[in-house]
């Protein structure tokens, strides 16, 4: 659509946003900066306030207090239909009475783009999502993945300042989800648009984002790059939300260690820290084995490569567990 590396999107700045429904507070003085061109994921379980935040940015709801700036402008008084926002919904929300082409051209019609220009841009958008041959179908004749790609084309064709995506892949099966994750990310990088993506799936957040905002009970628990959240979690909640985590008491204080960083058996002895435990459960996962061992009063979970030795560990066996200082995550 445009040359590469041109930043098309705008920045989003939230300042002390507050929102409650009746007596339930959904968002508590939330502030957040999303740079232009950033793929930002709002991650959290249901009830964390992530969807409400998205609705406020889109303009479907108004905050009780606080300021929302898009590209530096306060949009508090701007109605939804003048915000120039692209939105993709979990249930696609395609107009059932219009063909794929008319769904995509709807936003261009609203902007009174000339028919020639409109047709060119619709074709371009459909080609981008790989659906140029389905332009005359009705939404109900498409699969879920195809429908969601139409929704994406419809949102992108208007060249939105920001693209909001509300659990867009939640209704799709795993394989399709992964394909679309890659496709969305490629398109986003190519167009340089700002994306705010809502999901409860931490893997999806890790795969796609420049920035992850982990939310809990209407507040931000931690925001940062996927690497930061994964490797430098501020607390146990963040550490456990992103992946499984073991917690140990070290002389330096409490610490977390990911199961994949643990070494078992002979490998363990060369590590900086070694403990001993009794194997309680062994689960075969394919490439890895998940070994649960009892260390003192606590369970420790380790992920070890299978390495053609499926019977390396058996229940009841005593085993040494070791890990390196470099893999320790200090947790407050």
């Amino acid at each position, binding site marked *: 659509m445009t040359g590469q590396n041109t930043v098309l999107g705008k920045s989003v700045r939230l300042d002390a946003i507050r929102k409650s429904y009746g007596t339930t507070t959904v968002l508590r003085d939330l502030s957040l900066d999303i740079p232009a061109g950033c793929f930002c994921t709002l991650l959290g379980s249901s009830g964390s306030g992530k969807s409400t935040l998205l609705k406020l940015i889109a303009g*479907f*709801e*108004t905050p009780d207090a606080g300021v929302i700036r898009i590209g530096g402008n306060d949009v508090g008084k701007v109605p939804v239909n003048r915000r120039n926002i692209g*939105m993709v*919904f979990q*249930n696609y929300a395609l*107009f059932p009475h219009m063909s794929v082409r008319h769904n995509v051209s709807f936003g261009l019609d609203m902007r009174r783009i000339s028919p020639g220009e409109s047709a060119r841009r619709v074709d371009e958008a459909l080609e981008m999502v790989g659906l140029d041959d389905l332009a005359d179908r009705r939404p109900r004749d498409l699969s879920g993945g195809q429908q969601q790609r139409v929704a994406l084309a*419809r949102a992108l064709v208007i060249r939105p300042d920001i693209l*909001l995506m509300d659990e867009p892949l939640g209704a799709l099966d795993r394989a399709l989800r992964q394909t679309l994750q890659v496709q969305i990310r490629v398109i986003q990088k190519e167009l340089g648009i700002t994306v705010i993506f809502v999901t409860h799936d931490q893997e999806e957040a890790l795969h796609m984002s420049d920035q992850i905002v982990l939310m809990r009970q209407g507040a931000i628990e931690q925001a940062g790059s996927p690497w930061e959240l994964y490797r430098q979690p501020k607390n146990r909640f963040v550490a456990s939300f992103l992946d499984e985590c073991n917690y140990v008491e070290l002389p330096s204080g409490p610490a977390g260690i990911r199961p994949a960083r643990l070494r078992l058996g002979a490998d363990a002895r060369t590590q900086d820290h070694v403990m001993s435990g009794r194997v309680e459960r062994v689960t075969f996962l394919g490439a890895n084995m998940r070994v649960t061992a009892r260390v003192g009063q606590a369970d420790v979970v380790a992920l070890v490569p299978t390495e053609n030795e499926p019977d390396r560990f058996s229940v009841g066996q005593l085993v040494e567990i070791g890990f390196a200082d470099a893999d320790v995550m200090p947790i407050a």
Partner: protein
Amino acid sequence: MSRESAVPRRGRLRAAVMRRGAAWVALPPTLFLAALFALPVLRLLILSFSDPAGPFSPYWRIVDIPAYRTALLTTVGIGGLVTVLSVLLAYPVAYLMATVPPRVARLLGLCVLLPFWTSALVRTTAWIILLQRYGVLNTLLVDSHLLRHPVSFVYNLSGVLIGMSHVLMPFIVFPLYNAFRGIDQNLIHAAETLGAGPTTLCRRVFLPLTAPGVAAGATIVFMSALGYYITPALMGGPAQTMVAQLISFNVEEQLDWAMAGALSVVMLLASLLIFFLFQAVFGLDRLFGDAAPSGRGVVPFAVGARGRSASGRAMLVLGGAVLLFLLAPVLIVFPMSVGSSPFLSFPPQHLSLRWYHELLARPQWLASAWNSLQVAAIAVPGATLLGTMAALGVSRLRGGLARGLEVLFILPMIVPPIILAVGLYYQMVPLGLIRGHWGLGLGHIVIALPFVFLSAQAALRGFDRNLERAALGLGASWPTMFRRVMLPAIGPGVAAGAIFAFITSFDDVILALFLTDVRGRTLPRLIYENVSEEISPTITAVAVLVILLTLLTLLLNVFFQKDTR
């Protein structure tokens, strides 16, 4: 071990036989409708070819004689106008219902249904009181200097249109309401983010998405309007004579059965054509079906947190006005009935219960009310039993037979009642059934059966067949299962059907005009005879009592339905 397993096996076998056998319960209602619905209608149709001047002579006369030609055109014209008017009036009400909290929407739904279930005669009477030359509306308009001279709103086209739209509108309001509720909130959000304002939303999203609901409702309205008899007869003038009136005229005044038959054929063909078109386009489920939104993440349409737009508020005001229009005639009779003046002046000058006393003083009113109840005592149990059997039987069948029977059991609602009335009259007179209550009672079973059928069918659809299988698997025989599992589950639906059957029987006037004599005449027939001469204030007292009874019955239904929620 073998003994133990033998018992359930025999039970299963018997259950299978009973289950297959259960389809036979559709036989009695089928035979009943064949004898008292299909046969009389067919005989009337055959009569149309019995003219001494040649088998097709009445049909030629319909084409040749201007009065008949005009009546046909008037019927189609009035039907069309009523349909358009109903659509226009239904939109704001359906929108209003869809955007208020569900509890309020249910209450509004009751307001829409009240005129529909209120006796046609009571409604018509009330409209005449409101609209006539020296009626309530003219008094108000002249007193407030909006009009210099009173205008006649009734006994002309406007009277017929008002009266008919008033009662037929619910057929559009409910499908339209469901269509509104079926619109996914995210669609609106999507359109808004793409830049659509309120006008575009309305034109490009709301109208196309509600169009199928409107079309379904409009078809039913048009079809019903074609067969209207009472409203045009009482609220129209000679220029608004519709085909149904001509059928009655030919039977009662001209004794020209061939002509009545020919007119019936024309009307029946038109109604059936529309009905089968409807079935082909929308499917029978749409008739009273509920198109609730389904699927993952679909949020029913509602007013957003940002409140209503200016046009949304305008729709709200319009919706309120239409609701007032719906309720006005039902409400007006209450103050009118306690005025002491014999001239039905508004507002009533002195309060008195004079007309209620008069009502009690005249034995004919009590006698006719008693007649009505006796007829209902035949019609309600009969329709409830046969309608439930019909639904049960159809639910056990598949394919063409099921669809065919389904159509048969709904058909009495589709065929204009005047045709059934005349047909039954022709069939029953030789049997002496017109004296006493059996003739009318049987007739009422025919017209009330579809209500029970639809209601029981809906209940059966909501019944999980696995419950039945579980009960049979636990060793219950089919009758025990029916009594202890199925009947409690579908009971409320059957009860609702029985209530509608009662209202149908209690309000009917067309069948009563033909199938009763002076001694057996029902309350609606007596009101009709009074209203067609002149409207005395006593009528308002009768109207109040009938409305209260209807309201009570409807509330009873709400109560029954609440139990199942």
